[in-house]
């Protein structure tokens, strides 16, 4: 390779190196702001955000979903360490179900639990034919 080609290539390498490290530091410093939600454990550790509008994410605890009158719904959100009870009034997204990941927006108070204004459901990145899921369920029942 000729000298000026090598020099230009080096120049690009240097630009990318500087940019990557700058970006790396910036993103590292901003990591808490980039995260979409707090987990229940993180939320309980931060009394300063109680009562503020925040987003909390975790899994819907099994057997905790209760459908009450007037589209009122209560369920528990857990990260397998800590669990927070959530109340919500409104329409739930299609993917909402026990065991599913959710992101809820609202406020947390120690006495009332988490009052959600919006409930978003996460997808588990699993794709399975419905007949397979049915078979699996039956198998579980048999054993």
């Amino acid at each position, binding site marked *: 390779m000729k000298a000026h080609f090598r020099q230009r*290539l080096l120049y*690009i390498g240097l630009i990318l190196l500087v*940019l990557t490290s700058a970006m790396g530091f910036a993103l590292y410093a901003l990591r808490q702001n980039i995260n*979409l939600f707090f987990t229940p454990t993180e939320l309980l550790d931060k009394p300063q955000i109680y009562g503020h509008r925040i987003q909390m994410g975790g899994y819907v605890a099994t057997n905790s979903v209760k459908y009450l009158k007037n589209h009122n719904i209560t369920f528990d959100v857990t990260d397998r360490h800590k669990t927070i009870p959530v109340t919500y009034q409104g329409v739930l997204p299609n*993917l909402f179900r026990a065991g599913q990941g959710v992101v809820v927006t609202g406020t947390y108070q120690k006495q009332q639990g988490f009052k959600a204004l*919006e409930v978003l459901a996460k*997808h588990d*990145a699993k794709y399975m034919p419905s007949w397979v899921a049915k078979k699996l369920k039956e198998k579980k029942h048999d054993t």
Partner: protein
Amino acid sequence: MIKLFKKMITLQGAFEICGQWIPWLALFLVMCLAVGLVDGLVLAPADYQQGNAYRIMYVHVPSAMLAMSIYVVMALWAIMYWVWRIKLAAVALNISARIGAGMTFLALMTGAIWGKPMWGTWWVWDARLTSMLILLFLYLGIIALHSSLPEQSMKAKATSLLAIVGVINIPIIHYSVKWWNTLHQGSSFDFNANNIAASMLYPLIAMLLAFVCYYLLLLCFGMRRYIMTRHADNQWLKQSVMDGK
């Protein structure tokens, strides 16, 4: 290989190679698209939790993957131009930016359409969605830069520099679902985890191949169009066109 490469970077060579590839790419595109669409939209079974709505992934996943890989390819064109000053690489860069912008837009649109019923929202400012939006802006920035500068070499230099700088966004998009907690799910392509049933995966691979062919086809058309409009007076070009190359 080097011989082919040397031929590719000449006007005549690129023109003729693109001409040779176009029918094969078109054939392969039609085949993959037919398999992918019929298999994906008709034959593949409904999903256990999403029903038929999951089928939008047969457009969403390939377009998102192409949006990112076209950017990487574009950055390679940019390095080729920046280091060796190969003019045709800058042309390929410009054409790729337009196709990539389209792919990114398609990925964002199909994601929003899917997100509204499934997540409960069509947009959320999480790391994956936001970094994808930045990718769209990068593409649009390259297109805008190209159209706003007056002279060919200026266009080529400015856009290739932006393309190289912007490539840093690609690993951020890819790892965003791992590094931060997001609403967007992680990648389903994990060979150990077996996340997608085989009957649903095959049409996805067919669609992915179809999208790759589509990109290459558009690129070949774009290169030939550029050469034909820019160098219309060249004798060899007239000869090539007459020979049907």
